[in-house]
């Protein structure tokens, strides 16, 4: 056998060596290098996300500690008492509405109804005014607490300024920056001293409310008798809880430290995300997480039947001509920029859905009619549109990958086309279809523009007591809050790091979904024959 080098080749092969590599090796190294760069970039992004976000827990711990030390927690106990009373006033308002409704339907005109409700109105007014002394006390104490907190924050900034000036070597200027040590215990003494006044106010409040109950007016309409009795019971419960609040204020420990675990729990399970507040900022993930999951859920409920159904049809039942039309059309949907879809949602879809919800014969649908046109449903419909091409393509791939032996055997045994598809092909491709759905979910959870424009931007856990009617509530999402608040944060501040933490949670969620999808696909995939 002659040596390979001395054989004449059809194509003259130049034996160049570039950095000790043949051209083949060089090309292989180039591709390998690109792959490595992609992995490195991913690792760097993860590292930076974690680095910027990890500082959040320390800052949140400090945030919660200052909340306690500056006395804001103390004042919030008072405010909770005020809130409970306001909720009762709202109940009275609802009862009045019911009574007015009943009177109008009973044939009275507006003026007669107002006259009939006058004693009830006087009662409600007296009830509402009863809380004023407590509100005034709360307001005064709130001012004290806010002053302590502002002094602390300004002092922290001065410390930072001094540190920076010293670092630059301008020690003379650094000395001139005035840093006043804050003594929280001393500063909060007026709050603790107010406990006596609080007890007095509570005694007067209890007396007033009990007197009100005995002087309750007759129900303006008979249907209101029972609700008014229930209201009386609630007021008595409120009055009986006043000593508990006083005890809470007595046992309030200003110097109790806040642990890192508490800071973590406050983020992961916090029910409130409130920033730029004059009072206290809360960084709780739950409203955003439930918003994201709700919108993604609605999107999947709409997209999975459409996407998987279309995939089954196109793969199993469509003629070649239909395939040539339907497949590109569905894949063309993914060509829409999401911001265009969001704009479509604001300008057209939201209003159309609201008009549709007011159609009388549709009011059996939970949540219909609704008045907010930017809500979970609008955003969910548009996200479903975005998810359908992903689910369709991947599900169709999964159906294609079913080994041909299976449907052929089924058909040979006499099954109809429909039976083969539903009983053989679909179950065989199930793992791939599930994986497609999960990838669609991952796509939808990370979508920003559509939810920022169309989901309503209400930062609160939606009201699940309405059952399925929660679909028409406005929500805010994790992606939306990052996009909305990104521009206003100062680098390194707690708000900045909180947004990075939200981004990290989103990242981990997407990672988990993708990982699950791949695991399912790999484990249950049938070997192609």
């Amino acid at each position, binding site marked *: 056998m002659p040596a390979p080098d001395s054989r004449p080749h059809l194509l003259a092969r130049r034996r160049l060596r570039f950095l000790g590599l043949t051209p083949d090796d060089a090309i292989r190294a180039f591709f390998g290098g690109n792959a490595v760069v992609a992995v490195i970039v991913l690792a760097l992004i993860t590292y930076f996300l974690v680095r910027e976000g990890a500082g959040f827990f320390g800052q949140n711990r400090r945030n919660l500690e200052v909340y306690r030390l500056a006395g804001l927690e103390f004042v919030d106990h008072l405010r909770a008492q005020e809130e409970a009373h306001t909720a009762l*006033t*709202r109940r009275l308002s609802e009862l009045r509405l019911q009574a007015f409704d009943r009177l109008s339907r009973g044939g009275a005109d507006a003026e007669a109804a107002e006259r009939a409700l006058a004693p009830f109105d006087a009662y409600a007014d007296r009830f509402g005014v009863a809380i004023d002394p407590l509100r005034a006390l709360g*307001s005064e104490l709130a001012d004290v607490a806010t002053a302590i907190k502002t002094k602390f924050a300004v002092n922290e900034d001065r410390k930072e*300024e001094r540190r920076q000036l010293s670092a630059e070597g301008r020690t003379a200027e650094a000395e001139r920056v005035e840093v006043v040590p804050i003594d929280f215990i001393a500063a909060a003494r007026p709050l603790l001293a107010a406990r006596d006044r609080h007890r007095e106010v509570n005694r007067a409040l209890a007396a007033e409310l009990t007197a009100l109950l005995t002087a309750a007016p007759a129900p303006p309409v008979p249907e209101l008798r029972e609700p008014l009795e229930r209201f009386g019971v609630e007021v008595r419960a409120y009055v009986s809880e006043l000593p508990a609040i006083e005890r809470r204020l007595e046992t309030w420990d200003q110097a109790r430290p806040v642990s890192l675990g508490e800071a973590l729990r406050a983020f992961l399970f916090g029910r409130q995300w409130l920033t730029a507040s004059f009072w206290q900022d809360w960084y709780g993930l739950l409203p955003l997480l439930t918003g994201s999951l709700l919108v993604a859920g609605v999107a999947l409920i709409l997209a999975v039947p459409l996407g998987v159904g279309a995939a089954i049809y196109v793969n199993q039942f469509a003629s070649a001509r239909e395939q040539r039309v339907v497949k590109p059309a569905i894949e063309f949907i993914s060509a829409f920029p999401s911001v265009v879809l969001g704009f479509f949602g604001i300008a057209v879809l939201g209003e159309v859905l609201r008009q549709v919800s007011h159609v009388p014969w549709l009011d059996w649908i939970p949540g219909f009619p609704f*008045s907010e*046109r930017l809500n979970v449903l609008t955003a969910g419909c548009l996200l479903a549109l975005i998810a359908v091409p992903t689910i369709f393509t991947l599900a169709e791939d999964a159906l294609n990958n079913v080994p041909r032996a299976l449907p052929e055997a089924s058909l040979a045994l006499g099954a109809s086309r429909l039976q083969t598809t539903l009983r053989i092909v679909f179950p065989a491709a199930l793992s791939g279809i599930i994986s497609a759905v999960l990838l669609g979910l991952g796509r939808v959870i990370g979508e920003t523009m559509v939810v920022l424009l169309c989901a309503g931007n209400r*930062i*609160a856990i939606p009201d699940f007591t309405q059952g399925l009617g929660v679909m028409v509530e406005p929500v805010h999402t994790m992606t939306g809050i990052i996009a909305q608040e990104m521009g206003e*944060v100062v680098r390194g501040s707690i708000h900045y790091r909180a947004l990075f933490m939200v981004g990290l949670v989103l990242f981990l969620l997407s990672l988990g979904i993708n990982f699950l999808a791949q695991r399912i696909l790999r484990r249950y995939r049938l070997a192609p024959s």
Partner: protein
Amino acid sequence: MLLAAPALRGEKLVIKGSDTLGAKLVPTLAEEYKATRPGVAFEIAAEGSTTGISAIIEGTAQIGMSSREAKATEISAAAARGVRLNGIVVAFDGLAVIVNARNPIARLTPRQVEQIFTGDVTDWSAAGGRPGKISVYTRNTSSGTYSDWKDLAMRKRDYARSSQKLAGNEQIVAEVARNPNGIGYVGLAYLKAAGIKVLPINGVAPTRENILDKKYAYARPTYFYCNGEPAGEAARFVEFTLGPGGQAIADRLGFVPVR
């Protein structure tokens, strides 16, 4: 050559901040200013007063538009970075309460406004209107108007949990115009839209005269923030804004001039 010409002649002014100022007023001022000084390029980003103040602190803008005053914590945070936040009042703005044109309510008291926006009251019937759940539309947290409203109308309490946060004045107008149960607040320059109704507070309507006479409750100064004294092109633009030409434009757009 074409690209080099403006760079040779003028510089770029980066202005970031308030949507109240930056949506209509400052772009119009920029257009007028460019007529007298061609070659100056403007980059105006109106994403909320807080972004404007942050931009001045971080040095990414020459002028920060703000519809609220800088907070003490912002001033100290700026000082920690060696930046002196200097606020120059450029116009006065009123905040008007708007409801849907089909809402039968004709007036509100400041107490009712506070109750509605803080969520103490959730139904229109409690304020004297047709029964229906109140849909509260507010700006978002990067807005100075958001913060000012809490200060002027809500005694610094927080917004209702059920309030929806929208990105700008125009969005609030659009939502309130389409939702019969909607209520929101916008600057004076946005009152002439169809479908909305402006409510007088305690009988006082948000007109220029009432604001100048200090009879209307919800009026506030709007600022240009700079790092120390403005210099160069920024100084000339601020001077133009405070001069007769700029103030006439502010007047025309519905703001109240400083003089």
